[in-house]
């Protein structure tokens, strides 16, 4: 076998036999769902003004716009107050479920429905942070982001342990019930003609539902292991492709931001950073902004540094060390932006997007630290801490689950 074909077959083996980056996909799952959850909590008292049927961007206006651009929003299914209130709560619940990794695939779909529905309902109140969440909520649906740091992983590990002790596994009633309820809901919505505006999201919802059913059926009834392995392979391939898309999207964000800045005279003369700091809408701390922009030299360094980092970032992915240095710089800059420009949710979303590039060793360390902190906080026995299962997929029968009790 010559070298290129060996590389090819190794590559194929790699993307088919496992869902890569389990910790990276888990950390973005947690990050994006937490960002959205915190946002919904922050705006809870403003929910009517932002997304309610009687808000300034009224329900009828939203319908005229979505009829025209075919954006998906479940809030157009009814103009009733009750539906809006229930939906807002459901969107928060879906975010919690995804955060915890409870029925992760289903939760990710519901999370996406929540994000798209609220944002598309009132597209003119969003900002860059909403845009990031919008895209990532779609991409997350395709990932196996609950392999670690999730309730699913804990459940899988417990079942594994039970099986190792020779106990019989109980059928997963909750999963079946959840699937049936969602199927009824999908059928109801489809029959009521509410899926007529745009086909992408309805098709996606139905596809996931059908595949989840197929998955469950194959797990339970298939005699040969092959259908199971095939589904697993396809799930891995889809996950790996989605993770690639998420990484490419992050690179695209930085590249676009960087390359367009290069063309701007203010970025060239080094004053660009000064101006946003002095816009009324982006200066919660005017004294701090004045302090930061007191020196022309500092402003120029920050402006040039920002452009360099943004333009360079995608290319540094080929070198671990340089990439990690840039990651630290970008995350720091976003943390500063959160406070100085008053954009906490945008910054949180961007930091999460950056986190997909963090090294596994660092994420493991982070997980251990978090687990210890949680253990101390909750003052429980070691067995009740959050799950830290094996780095492999939880189904991997060869991997030990010792880390699980940390």
């Amino acid at each position, binding site marked *: 076998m010559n070298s290129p074909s060996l590389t090819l077959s190794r590559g194929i083996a790699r993307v088919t036999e496992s869902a890569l980056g389990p910790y990276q996909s888990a950390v973005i799952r947690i990050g994006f769902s937490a960002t959205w959850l915190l946002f919904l909590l922050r705006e809870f008292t403003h929910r009517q003004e932002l997304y309610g049927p009687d808000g300034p961007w009224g329900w009828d206006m939203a319908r005229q716009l979505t009829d025209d651009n075919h954006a998906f929003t479940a809030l157009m299914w009814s103009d009733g107050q009750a539906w809006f209130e229930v939906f807002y709560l459901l969107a928060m619940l879906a975010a919690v479920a995804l955060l915890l990794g409870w029925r992760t695939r289903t939760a990710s779909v519901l999370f996406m429905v929540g994000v798209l529905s609220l944002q598309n309902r009132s597209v*003119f109140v969003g900002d860059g942070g909403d845009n990031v969440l919008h895209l990532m909520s779609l991409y997350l649906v395709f990932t196996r982001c609950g392999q670690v740091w999730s309730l699913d992983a804990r459940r899988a590990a417990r079942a594994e342990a039970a099986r190792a002790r020779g106990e019989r596994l109980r059928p997963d009633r909750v999963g079946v019930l959840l699937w049936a309820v969602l199927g009824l809901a999908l059928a109801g919505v489809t029959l009521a003609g509410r899926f007529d505006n745009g*086909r992408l999201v309805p098709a996606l919802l139905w596809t996931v539902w059908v595949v989840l059913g197929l*998955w469950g059926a194959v797990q339970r009834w298939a005699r040969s292991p092959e259908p199971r*392995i095939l589904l697993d392979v396809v799930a891995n391939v889809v996950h790996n492709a989605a*993770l690639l898309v998420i990484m490419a999207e992050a690179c695209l964000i930085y590249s676009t931001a960087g390359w367009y800045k290069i063309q701007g005279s203010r970025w060239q003369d080094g004053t660009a950073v000064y101006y946003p700091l002095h816009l009324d809408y982006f200066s919660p701390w005017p004294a701090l902004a004045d302090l930061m922009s007191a020196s022309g030299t500092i402003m120029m360094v920050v402006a040039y540094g920002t452009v360099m980092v943004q333009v360079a970032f995608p290319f540094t*992915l080929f070198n671990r060390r340089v990439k990690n240095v840039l990651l630290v710089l970008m995350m720091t800059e976003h943390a500063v932006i959160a406070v100085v420009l008053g954009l906490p949710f945008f910054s949180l979303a961007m930091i999460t997007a950056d986190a997909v590039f*963090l*090294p596994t060793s660092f994420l493991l360390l982070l997980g251990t630290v978090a687990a210890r902190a949680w253990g101390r906080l909750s003052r429980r026995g070691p067995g009740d801490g959050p799950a830290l299962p094996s780095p492999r997929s939880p189904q991997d029968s060869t991997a030990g689950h010792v880390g699980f009790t940390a």
Partner: protein
Amino acid sequence: MDAYDEDSHARGGPDGAKGASHPDRDPEGDAGTGPGSGPKGGVSSGSGSGPEPGAGSGQEERAGSGGPRPGSGAEREPLAAAPDAPAADAADAVDVRDAGPPDQAPLPSPRTGVAALSPRYQTVAALALAVVAVAACVHLAMVFLSVAPANTVTKQHGRAIEDWVYPEFEQNWKLFAPNPLQQNIAVQARAEVRMKDGGVRTTGWTDLSARDGAAIDGNLVPSHTQQNELRRAWDFFVATHTADNRPVALRGSLSEQYVRRIVVMRLYRDDPTSREGVIQRVQVRSSTTNVQPPKWSPERVSDKPVYRLLPWWTVSSDEAAGGVR
């Protein structure tokens, strides 16, 4: 600085912020070509097949693979090896995609993944791999072209790109670029209010943006109602109106209604006169003031505000009565 800034761009041209870019697409308000049409179907069907590991008794899914897994030890022992998974993953995934559909050659360690399958199943897996790889590449290409500057390809295939990207994958990352906004744009409003005694009073100008600014001051978590609502509504209005304030198409009239409803809502909240009566008409103006250049810069710009005055708008009864107060 890569905080989002849609406004600098939205104000600069029509192809700006998320919402404001819609006017561009007005002419092709095509009902038939939803984003689900054409090759999109491939995305959905191919990628939808990532099932929940937990659904069903997923623990048996590896039953057939047996034996220890081959491949990089790094993957299995991340604690020891401290690999840099993502970069490597990306590189690998790219390899596969570049290579196109996989062949049926036996893999180095035929234990797991496709290697554990019989040729019939392998064919299906190979097909899935090919479909997913192509879908991911096409998607990335489409998104790339949608954020790239106008070029020979986008001029030729602009419609196909839009059909793919809109509405759900729309994005704009010209963050504070090419130049950041260098003006404070304030929206101000006054109203004609019918009082309880039957008389009509005209209020003074209320600076609604200044109130937003005051609400943001010292605020660690500004609300979208303070930071985005009025600011972006005005961007939307400007992007969908001609210089002489005539609305352009559906979005023009929607933006006018939107600004009016925000203004009425806020006057009822903040303006003492409006609170006592019923608003009959409102007038809106924008006040644009240059941000003064830094002290260390020799540049000088005018500090006089420039106004854009809109005509009086009649407030309909449901606008005057309803809404969120």
